[in-house]
């Protein structure tokens, strides 16, 4: 599977941060944070289903990663993306077990400089999206509403609408294609 160009740049930045140690390479840290933040946020949204919790996950995972890179505690900086994914998995487990406290994050990293601010996530025009949803067929609109408002997989959506799961996937795929086209956010 080809992977489009993140690994090398991530690794180079991670090596710079580790080499600087306590002298702190602020530019490399800021760049790495901005590159990794969207991935961690998406992982958090997928597993925690809450934008605020996903934001907290970004801070917890990336600030800890930067700290460990500086301290030389990351054995393979060239595999930094895998390292961060592992941290995400562990932190989400802690959050689910109730073993994670937001207060601890604030106490530890409360004075973090703005240099590690994450990029704003993609936001769509709400009125335009509502218009695109209205333009869908009734069945398509109901399927995407049930899917994304309730975070339900195809079998659960199908059970509520009297449809087979496979049929729901077909309707969902078609509806998402129409929405992406209508919003101008198709395949880059």
């Amino acid at each position, binding site marked *: 599977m080809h*992977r489009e160009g993140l690994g090398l740049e991530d690794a180079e930045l991670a090596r710079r941060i580790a080499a600087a140690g306590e002298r702190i390479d602020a530019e490399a840290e800021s760049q790495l944070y901005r590159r990794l933040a969207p991935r961690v946020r998406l992982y958090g949204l*997928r597993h925690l289903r809450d934008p605020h919790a996903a934001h907290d996950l970004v801070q917890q995972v990336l600030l800890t990663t930067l700290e460990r890179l500086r301290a030389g505690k990351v054995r393979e900086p060239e595999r930094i993306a895998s390292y961060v994914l592992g941290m995400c998995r562990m932190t989400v487990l802690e959050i689910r077990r109730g073993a994670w406290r937001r207060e601890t994050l604030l106490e530890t990293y409360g004075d973090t400089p703005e240099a590690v601010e994450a990029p704003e996530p993609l936001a769509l025009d709400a009125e335009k*999206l*509502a218009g695109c949803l209205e333009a869908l067929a009734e069945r398509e609109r109901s399927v995407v509403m049930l899917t994304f408002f309730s975070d339900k997989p195809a079998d659960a959506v199908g059970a509520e609408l009297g449809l087979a799961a496979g049929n729901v996937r077909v309707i969902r*795929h078609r509806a998402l294609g129409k929405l992406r086209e209508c919003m101008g956010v198709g395949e*880059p």
Partner: protein
Amino acid sequence: MSQAANGKHAGPEFETLVAWWLGELPAAEAEGIEEHLFACAHCTRRLEVLAALGLGIRAAVSGGMLHAMISKGFLETMRAQGLRVREYQVEPGGRVECTIKAEDDAVVSRVRAPLAGVKRLDALWRIEAGGRVEELRLEDVPFDPAAGEVFSLPMAATHLRKMPAHTATMRLVAVEEKGERELGEYVFAHTPG
């Protein structure tokens, strides 16, 4: 596998990313997708689009910007997520006096109908307001045949709140090979809240 416009990327199909997002994939496959995502800028961008659509759809529902035929489960989810829903129930041939108050986030009508054996259901609306008549046909609306009712969610924010007193009549019809069979007519007499 999908091919990007530049011809270089071969990652998961968009539908596979959607399946991962919704927790439909087996654990091993889901872990493989996650490892790919953390190393692929192209898939990160595609997933950002999906996340933005998901959050946007959620916001549009919460903001009363959509109309739809929904399910009982959807109504329960709306309440579970803290939306204040005013609910009406209407039988075939029935009439309901309805409104939407400032404190309501949404209005849902539970419309009873004999749905057993119905394959396709259309909803025909006739809205009379201020001497004007608007007619609308919603084709092939989703429904659970076993439920014996459908749930109508009108646009609260962008439509219902702005409407003067009016009467909306809905006819539910089963569309069959032989033609159409009326299942019921329902009258909603709306007054502003």
